[in-house]
């Protein structure tokens, strides 16, 4: 609110400055003739001074004076009609005032309205650093961890914290490197190897490479029940063309899943998407399957899918398009709070990717979620 008061004060001051000469300005006509005449008179004086200083010969001075006098006469002949306070001048002044009164605030509001962010506070770096760590924004905490690790590269725990963050932000190569550093410096649990495998796969555009398979196998060797490693190994099998093997692996994973595990929905979807291997589902295409359900169950199934997507995105990765789909779906389901929270998370995750961020912001504006601006 304060900022709008300041803007209004600025606009008022500027308009006032423009109107001042219209009210207080001179009423007479221009004094061109006087200007020209004073110039030539000054020239005449200058010539006299030059003669006095012996810079110019008297004869030349005479000729120069004659020329200046000629020009003086000609300038006097250029006299233009004088104008006083008339009806016309009053009208002109009113029109000019109207122009200043309308054009200045209107243009400023139009342009500023299109490009300005009146609610965005200044964020000087020093103030952001001095904030207590718990209230620091995401980018600052990340930078803090990165700086710490640049100084202490042997801090395996630090790397193990940073690596999943990179993964969530979609910086897959950085994530793979961070996982590798964590493993090298003592954090060699199954989860780290599984994470490294996932990062390697995502960095390779979703292909389970030999290196990724090695990491995943290492994870399974340390913890045969590690769901993440097993899930991606199954995808590897699928990519190798071993569809029954992949389906069997995924089913086994589902069966062994502890109750309430968040990832089961992801696994189930993957299983359903495997051609001809759905667990007795009515069809391969989930949309088609849902369409065949009764309407109450339909709503339920859609909600299930959206929750699944939310869970998957919460776990990591996720492109701007996927986040967009989630936010849109949550709004359609009438869950405005969830949508706003997803928007916040999406902004945080995609903070490093300007293009994705603009996409998300555009979506937020479109859906009227602007009130959730951080």
């Amino acid at each position, binding site marked *: 609110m304060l900022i709008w008061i300041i803007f209004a004060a*600025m606009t008022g001051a500027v308009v006032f400055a423009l109107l001042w000469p219209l009210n207080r300005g001179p009423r007479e006509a221009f004094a061109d003739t006087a200007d020209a005449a004073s*110039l030539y008179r000054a020239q005449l004086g200058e010539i006299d001074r030059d003669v006095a200083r012996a810079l110019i010969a008297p004869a030349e001075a005479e000729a120069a004076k004659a020329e200046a006098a000629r020009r003086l006469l000609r300038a006097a002949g250029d006299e233009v009609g004088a104008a006083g306070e008339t009806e016309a001048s009053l009208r002109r002044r009113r029109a*000019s005032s109207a*122009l200043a009164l309308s054009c200045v605030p209107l243009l*400023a509001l139009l342009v500023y309205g299109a490009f300005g962010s009146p609610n*965005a506070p200044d964020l000087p770096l020093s103030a952001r650093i001095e904030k207590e760590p718990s209230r620091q924004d995401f980018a600052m905490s990340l930078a803090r961890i990165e700086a710490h690790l640049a100084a202490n590269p042997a801090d395996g725990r630090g790397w193990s914290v940073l690596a999943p963050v990179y993964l969530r932000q979609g910086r897959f190569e950085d994530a793979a490197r961070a996982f590798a550093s964590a493993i090298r410096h003592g954090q060699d649990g199954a989860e780290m190897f599984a994470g490294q495998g996932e990062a390697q796969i995502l960095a390779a555009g979703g292909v389970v490479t030999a290196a990724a398979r090695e990491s995943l196998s290492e994870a399974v060797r340390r913890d045969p029940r590690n769901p993440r490693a097993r899930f991606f190994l199954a995808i590897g099998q699928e990519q190798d063309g071993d569809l029954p093997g992949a389906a069997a692996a995924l089913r086994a994973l589902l069966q062994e899943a502890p109750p309430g595990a968040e990832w089961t929905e992801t696994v189930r979807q993957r299983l359903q998407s495997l051609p001809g291997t759905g667990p007795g589902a009515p069809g391969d295409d989930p949309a088609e399957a849902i369409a065949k359900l009764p309407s109450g169950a339909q709503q339920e199934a859609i909600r299930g899918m959206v929750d699944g997507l939310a869970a998957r995105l919460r776990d990591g990765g996720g492109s701007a398009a996927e986040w967009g789909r989630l936010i849109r779906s949550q709004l359609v389901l009438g869950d405005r709070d969830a949508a706003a929270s997803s928007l916040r998370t999406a902004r945080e995750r995609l903070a490093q990717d*300007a293009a994705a961020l603009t996409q998300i912001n555009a979506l937020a504006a479109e859906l009227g979620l602007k009130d959730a601006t951080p």
Partner: protein
Amino acid sequence: MIVEIGHFALALALGVAVVQSVVPLWGVARQDRALAGVGQAAALASFLLVCLAFAALTLSYLRSDFSVENVVANSHSTQPLIYKITSVWGNHEGSMLLWVLILTLFGALVALSRRSLPERLRAGTLAAQGMVTVAFLAFTLLTSNPFRRMLPAPAEGQDLNPLLQDLGLAIHPPLLYVGYVGFSITYAFAVAALIDGRIDAVWARAVRPWTLLAWVFLTLGIAMGSYWAYYELGWGGWWFWDPVENASLMPWLAGTALIHSTVVMEKRDALKVWTILLAILTFSLSLLGTFIVRSGVLTSVHSFATDPARGLFILIILVVFVGGSLALFAWRAPLLRQGGIFAPVSREGALVVNNVFIATSCATVFIGTLYPLALEMITGDKISVGPPFFNATFIPLLVPLLLLLPIGQSLAWKRGDLLGAAQRTMLAFAIAIAVTVIVFAIRWGGPVLAPLGVGLGVFLIAGAAFDLGERIMARASGLPAIWARAVGLPRSAWGTALAHAGVGISVIGIAATAWSTEAIGVLRPGDSLTSGRYRVTLESVTPRTGPNFRAEVARFSLASGDRVLLPVEAAKRLYIARNMPTTEAGIRTDGLSQAYVSLGEPQGDGSIAVRLYDKPLVLLIWIGALVMAFGGGLSLTDRRFRLAAPRRRAAVVPQAAAQPAE
């Protein structure tokens, strides 16, 4: 909040500029002084508003406020303070803001110069300046807004282009912009005169200081840019005939012609139409330079902007302002009252010759710069018009001009005496010949053109000195009288002589580049390399860490014959944030000459490629430019009124003494 206040101030300035471009013009047309007064208020208000915007952006850079997109893209929290400030204009958006700031600064100065400007002219000028301001403010706000926010804010910026992280950036662009934008005022004066249909000596007198001011700054800006390229790019060259350099050279040439033609107009009330045209062309060439640099037509250090939308916008500005003013010129110029006619052999005749030569050389540069671009656009063929073209066209045009310069300078106004002028310059010419012969003898077997160039430079300096001497000595005898005349001589006379001598100094420096030598070698510590008079020995290669870069610094000891000079350091830097290497040349100044060491690639086996240049008298190039600019500045402080005094053939005074007062 401060960022947003700056943004809003800039938006307000746009509205104010619209008022500034409409109301005063109406006042001029209707003889209404009250309306004309709005122009002054608007000019001052828009300057204050843009100041506020500029201060807000600068503060964001100083505080590393990474919620501003522009700061993120061009700054880094570890940058030294000075580069945090210079980063403000080290990028497209910020430099546009600087451009607009200077534009409004000139507007405000015109608004404040109450005494020296007729009111109608001032109102018209402010209106025209307002239109230029509207165009550039709209361009800045709509396509290159420096206040765009980025939320959530990243933790670190992407750093400024390392090539620009140099003190040169603090000096070169502001100087150059004051020059470029300063010519917008002469443009505005010309447009105002055309609209009003009045142009006379009063106009010329009003325009002269602004032209000189812009010219002085443009001269300094170009010289600074040239020296910066010389030491920063590591090639040892100081002028590359690069289109971006040409873009600044063209307005300079046109501005030089303009300075000379306004003198004729002021003194003789002649050359009016031509002067108006030159004023329009000079700023048009500035705009063209802006277009070339920022449209993405070229890629170079200068072309930060490669957004086609911006290119289109600038093209529209270019078409509207150049086309509009030329159309106005075609319509109104025939209505202007013609000035007096004059004899071909006279000071004004010589100045016309000067204008013809300079305008032609400017056209040459124009063709050499734009032809390749046009050809590429039409046929897709890439051709390179490099130094050979300009050496073959530009220099042959310049040499006769410089040869005629001292003669023209000693011609009298109205009715000159060619024979007398030739006689007066004879002594200077004799000295120049003698110097040429001596230099030729000393440097026997060297390049033939170099001694001739040095001779030409000496001719210019001696010509300027003798011209001054003659004015001081004439009609005066005894030291006190001479002293009195020297003091009494108008400062513009001193300025003219100095500026012309500066040209001579630069010419000597340029001619001496023919003697520069270059050697390349792969050195290990302890090895030496010799080029010309200098010998460097590699002492050590050590790593070093700067605030935002890492460097490999090579230390050399330097000797010239038996003389041991101070050691010199050259470095290769790697800027971490952008992962971009730069070369820092090692330069040791030895009198007016320089030894220039530049590092190549490390060879892996501990040795490093090194280039060593011996650059004799190279500093004279820039010293000459400084002297020129100083001469211009001196002339600027001369606020006297000028009027040509015709010479009487049968004058009682001695012939040689018949110099007019300037």
